[in-house]
């Protein structure tokens, strides 16, 4: 082979063929694993919802249109703004779960929280994705003391985080010591999200609670 230039057509044919083969292989893997992956993803979603709304077995997903209307969404598809309504085995409405995100210490924190339209409180909080400092900022997803803030966080007043040990009002979040920035980001995130979503939910409360 040394020194001889390979014919161009041969190169084209070879690479074309290899690529084609690769493409087919990949599609094969894609098709073969697709259903399993979907099941997995739904499982994950349900688990995280169930964590926020204990006892939940069924969820209904709505997409919020830009005009503030709701349309039901096929499960598993991600889109802009979603509302998950959760029901227990007996079909009882448990509350809604909303998504929110905000810039934290290192990067955007995205999270889900449970909201009770009846009591106008936040009843649960879990982080989906963050790059906060491990051992510090990332405690917002794991620190029991911090998560205890979200047992019944009043939203009638704008939510805000205050320094550790300084919580006095029901709408305040007691920040994690040493991670005030991340904690405040959570506060801002919830405040903004509730401010936007609460009226929409209030408007469609009946429909959501009915689950259609």
């Amino acid at each position, binding site marked *: 082979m040394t020194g001889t230039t390979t014919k161009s057509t041969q190169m084209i044919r070879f690479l074309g063929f290899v690529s084609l083969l690769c493409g087919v292989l990949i599609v094969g*893997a894609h098709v073969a694993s697709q259903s399993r*992956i979907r099941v997995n993803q739904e499982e994950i979603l349900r688990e995280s919802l169930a964590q926020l709304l204990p006892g939940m077995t069924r969820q209904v997903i709505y997409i919020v249109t830009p005009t503030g209307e709701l349309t039901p969404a096929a499960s598993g598809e991600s889109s802009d703004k979603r509302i998950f309504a959760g029901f227990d085995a007996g079909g009882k409405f448990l509350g809604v779960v909303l998504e929110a995100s905000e810039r934290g210490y290192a990067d955007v924190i995205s999270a889900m929280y449970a909201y009770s339209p009846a009591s106008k409180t936040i009843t649960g909080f879990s982080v989906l994705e963050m790059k906060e400092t*491990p*051992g510090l900022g990332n405690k917002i997803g794991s620190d029991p003391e911090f998560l205890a803030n979200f047992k019944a966080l009043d939203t009638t007043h704008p939510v805000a985080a205050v320094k550790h040990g300084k919580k006095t009002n029901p709408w305040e979040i007691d920040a994690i010591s040493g991670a005030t920035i991340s904690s405040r980001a959570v506060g801002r995130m919830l405040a903004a999200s509730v401010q936007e979503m609460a009226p929409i939910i209030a408007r469609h409360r009946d429909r959501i609670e009915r689950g259609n």
Partner: protein
Amino acid sequence: MKETAPNPFINGLWRQNPTFVQILGMCPTLAITNSVQNAIAMGLATAFVLICSNGLIAAIRKHVPKQVRIATYIAIIATAVTVTDYLVKAISISVYKALGPFIPLIVANCLVLERAEGFAAKKPVIPSMMDGAGMGLGFAFGLTCLGTVREVLGAGTFLGIHLFGPNFEPWVLFLLPPGGFISLAIWLLIFASYRERKDRRERARAALLTVQPAEAQS
């Protein structure tokens, strides 16, 4: 002359260890090793890709035109990686989440292409797969070493088991980027001092064996 490597498997595992000797595949080495579990998973995923791609490339090595060889190898590697990606996703979403964006980046792990070019392109299928396995496991070994330092110091745990009790003050740094660099440096220093001590011993032995060159003997 190319040294006659006795066994491509051992070669990759120790003598030519990709992490500590060749310093290849550094991105996952540094990025994924903040827990031992991630390190092992990433190492195994890479080993799997290496075995597949080395085998495939060795199989077609005789037919590849020189000018498109890189593109071909890369396409094959990418296929192997995409397949792995789907596999991991199908097996466990939580592992997939931990390895994050780094599985697709196995494609670009220099180690994989280096082995394709440096070994699989020249050798038959079986030794190539052996080499892939050796390198891959060597890589996994390297990652685990690093992961151990980082997890033990950074979180006080090993594979999630608490080692020092609940009051341990974690060294957050080791979970952060600088800690990755430092941990690898620590391992390299350990190996270097080991090698230096060995060298010194060998030199001392050699000095005993050689006759001192005579200086103007009378």
